[in-house]
């Protein structure tokens, strides 16, 4: 799509999300990576996006209550008994 090989800010920003999601083809990913290493503004943008993702991963880590685990096991036992005649 670009007439030359280098990646400019408008393209980098346009594809930044897909790039961070690893959904960009290797050739373009390399071009984007090169641009990010040279452009403070776009690099900063990528940094914010990545921090938010890390924040989500950190915050959304949950452990299921033991009571839920038990309920699930119990129901599975019931289903097993009905379907396998155990």
């Amino acid at each position, binding site marked *: 799509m670009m007439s030359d090989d280098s990646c400019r800010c408008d393209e980098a920003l346009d594809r930044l999300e897909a790039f961070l*999601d*690893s959904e960009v083809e290797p050739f373009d990913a390399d071009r984007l990576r090169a641009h990010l290493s040279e452009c403070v503004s776009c690099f900063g943008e990528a*940094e914010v996006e990545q921090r*938010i993702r890390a924040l989500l991963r950190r*915050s959304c880590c949950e452990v299921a209550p033991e*009571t*839920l685990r038990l309920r699930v096991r119990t129901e599975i036992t019931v289903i097993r008994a009905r379907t*396998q005649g155990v």
Partner: protein
Amino acid sequence: MSEPTSDAVEATAEPTAAAEPDAAVDVRDAESDAERDLRFETDAMPLLDQLYGAALRMTRNPADAEDLVQETFAKAYAAFHQYRPGTNLKAWLYRILTNSFINSYRKKQREPLQSNADDIEDWQEHRAASHSSTGLRSAEAEALDLIGDDVVKEALAQLPDDFRMAVYLADVEGFAYKEIAEIMDTPIGTVMSRLHRGRGQLRKLLADHARDLGLVRGA
């Protein structure tokens, strides 16, 4: 709770596998009930915590989340013979979870959060511009780390269901666009639109919060 039947599990298209398992060898052909039960115990049960986390984000309510997870695992167990070993089990389970949520819970919610019709063309035009308009300057990225878990979860909860789900599947669970499309049963373009808009809304909420806390200079 009525017993789920395998029919209740929507005829799931096989989740995309990175490498197609050898068609000649399907573990299911020769295994006994007990062996399949063991496979469920070993492979599916360990994902309960993650599915509970997802259910919490979907229902925004611990009691409903527990019910949703129980329903999901019951359906998954009843239909486990339909799951092809070697394909993406997590995606298969998430498909059941998402379907169950849409069919059972979203209808019951007092205030379901709906998004506008996905305006794909609109967002593609404004994609680059929107990033600079959220107000969170790159230099203050460090402020994000100071935001507490509860605030993040609260911000997520404010997103419309579809946006929230897409963001959760991508950013917390790391599913690919294609997998998210299968889980949510929407085209990839819609997934990308929901991701972009959901992340944009989330970023604005977090930026507003950081500003309120005095973590960043007010605009």
